[in-house]
């Protein structure tokens, strides 16, 4: 080792990642070592609503995975164990804030008013699908909830969210943009480009990384040599924080703080929500092939289940009761049943929708192509 010294001959080093910030213990009690001032002041009504929407994600996922397994639905992606990352963030935002989702955050759309009917119609790509049958299941759009259209290429939404945040800044509004992505998406260029632009512009943007440990079969250790995802914010000149992704209170607390910073003109924040993908990546995936034995931590993470933890917390607060829980289950199930029953009566989108929305007005060549199609009998579905 070279012992010689000189001014500037200092290798920059990152400190080790701290354990993720948590407010609740695994049993839903506020941890003794947490300053009570850090616990967000969530009203009973909001607390119940958070619980209800988390429960909705859980029940809806369970139902649609079953429908997929029985061949009634082509494809699905569930959020099992990651529901707190949807609702903790959702609670901390205003409706006017923009959300650039990845594909595993339906809870934030529910919180903002996306109905199970629209959700279900999107999955079936029918005539009442808000996106007119143009995208695979789980690629939702909910304009009224400022929930931006989902795309499959990972990370493209990151610079877009920064642009929307910059636009709010330019237009003198105090909206923030929130963008979701997984830890695998901290690898492609769009992540780095987006964070870099956000840092330079001090854009009012909150980056929420759902670090669930797995990008399909690829563990987080293969994605980065950094000490954490949150560390990456430092290189772009703004704070990063690690938070327990299964603790809705901790997520709400850090998101409230990040949003306040953003609205005050202090710039972006990267939140690394540490959680675990207990289920498969999607209905097309089979984790038993690549996640065996000790590699499969699902059982450990089930003990930290976000829904149970928050449910116990609300129960300890004396707000949630088995009777209320049962009402929620019945209401959600009924809404879902109604949406599924309606699906049976709704046909596919009309053929003209093929050429709509490509441009604001269909180009002449598109009208010509549609006319050719309309002159022939419909092609049978091959799947």
């Amino acid at each position, binding site marked *: 080792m070279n012992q010689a010294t000189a001014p500037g001959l200092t290798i920059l080093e990152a400190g080790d990642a701290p354990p993720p910030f948590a407010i609740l213990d695994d049993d839903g009690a506020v941890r003794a070592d947490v300053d009570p001032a850090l616990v967000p002041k969530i009203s009973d009504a909001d607390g119940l609503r958070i619980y209800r929407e988390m429960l909705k994600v859980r029940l809806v996922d369970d139902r649609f995975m079953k429908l997929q397994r029985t061949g009634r639905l082509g494809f699905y992606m569930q959020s099992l164990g990651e529901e707190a990352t949807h609702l903790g963030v959702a609670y901390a935002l205003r409706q006017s804030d923009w959300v650039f989702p990845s594909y595993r955050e339906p809870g934030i759309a529910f919180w903002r008013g996306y109905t199970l009917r629209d959700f279900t119609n999107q999955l079936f790509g029918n005539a009442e699908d808000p996106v007119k049958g143009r995208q695979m299941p789980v690629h939702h759009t909910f304009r009224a909830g400022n929930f931006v259209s989902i795309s499959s290429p990972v990370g493209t939404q990151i610079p877009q969210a920064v*642009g929307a945040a910059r*636009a709010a800044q330019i237009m003198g509004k105090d909206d923030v943009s929130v963008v979701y992505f997984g830890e695998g998406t901290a690898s492609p260029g769009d992540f780095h480009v987006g964070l870099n632009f956000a840092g330079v512009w001090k854009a009012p943007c909150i980056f929420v990384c759902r670090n669930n440990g797995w990008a399909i079969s690829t563990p987080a250790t293969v994605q980065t040599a950094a000490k954490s995802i949150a560390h990456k914010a430092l290189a772009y000149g703004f704070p990063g924080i690690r938070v327990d992704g299964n603790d809705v209170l901790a997520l709400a607390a850090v998101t409230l703080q990040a949003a306040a910073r953003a609205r005050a003109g202090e710039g972006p924040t990267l939140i690394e929500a540490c959680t675990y993908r207990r289920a498969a990546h999607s209905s097309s995936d089979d984790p038993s092939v690549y996640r065996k034995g000790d590699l499969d931590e699902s059982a450990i993470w089930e003990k930290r289940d976000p829904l149970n933890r928050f449910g116990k917390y609300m129960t300890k607060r004396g707000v949630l009761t088995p009777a209320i829980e049962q009402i929620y289950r019945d209401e959600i199930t009924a809404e879902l049943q109604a949406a599924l029953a309606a699906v049976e009566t709704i046909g596919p989108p009309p053929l003209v929708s093929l050429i709509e929305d490509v441009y604001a007005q269909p180009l002449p060549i598109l009208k010509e192509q549609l006319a050719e199609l309309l002159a022939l009998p419909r092609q049978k579905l091959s799947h």
Partner: protein
Amino acid sequence: MPVYNIIQAVNDALRLEMRKNPRVVVLGEDVGRFGGVFRATTGLQEEFGKDRVMDTPLAEAGIIGTAIGMALYGLRPVAEIQFADFIFPAFDQIVNELAKFRYRSGGEYPAPMVIRTPYGGGIRGGHYHSQSPEALFAHTAGLKVIIPSNPYDAKGLLLTALRDEDPVMFLEPKRVYRAARGEVPEGEYTIPFGQAKIVREGQGLTVLCYGAMLHVVMEALEKQGAAEFDPEVIDLRSLVPLDTETILESVRKTGRVVIVHEAQKTCGFGAELSALIAEKALLHLEAPIVRVCGLDTPFPYTLEMEYLPSPERITKAIADTARF
């Protein structure tokens, strides 16, 4: 009436629209303090400030990605990509995101914006300052692709682009950025998309071209004697939407076609034009359709004038087609 080059015409259009519409913002590398490496945004940051004319970090995917977010939110961004050769880091954002946003969101999230970029060879720029990627964008549903050849069209088409509800790829022929000069009216005027311009009427054959190649075609006519074959020269101006009527009407009249572009031949936009004519006007043809294009090679440095369609190659193609 002032005489402008294309750069001045672009600058004029941007300035006029920025004065009129506070939602128009410009972003890109070196566009602010410096006014762009080709000076197309000169003086805009001084007039409109750093929030509306933004020097960005050096990352094309970031320029386009953030511009999309701005467009979604309600601004009307004009993103400059310094050379079309450098647009590819943003290709995913353009092809998978920008072009599809309106469609994939069921019409809920349109992203109208303009991407300006200088394209084309003949400036001793080698592979990476000379390419013509227009066919890649014309092949992407959801984008409009506009290429002016002169200052008058550049201003009128850019003003249309800035008011269009769809994303517009605005490719500027840098070889004639300064060389193409002409009278440009002061104040606003627009040129509709999808209208080709008949630059020279003729009966002998139809020559289809756009951008810098229009000037090479005219040189062939004026200096190499190609005019004796009485060509009708059409400047497409707009590849998407394409003015098929003007093209087909001319072809039905002349029965002979030469297509000129500097992008490589295979799968270039000329292939689309050839197919269109074959589909819609085959029985009017009296000679094979001929394409005069760049070679199917990367763009060369030293031998670029051999790579590019020359007045001589164009003249020979015109003569062969006329005499066939």
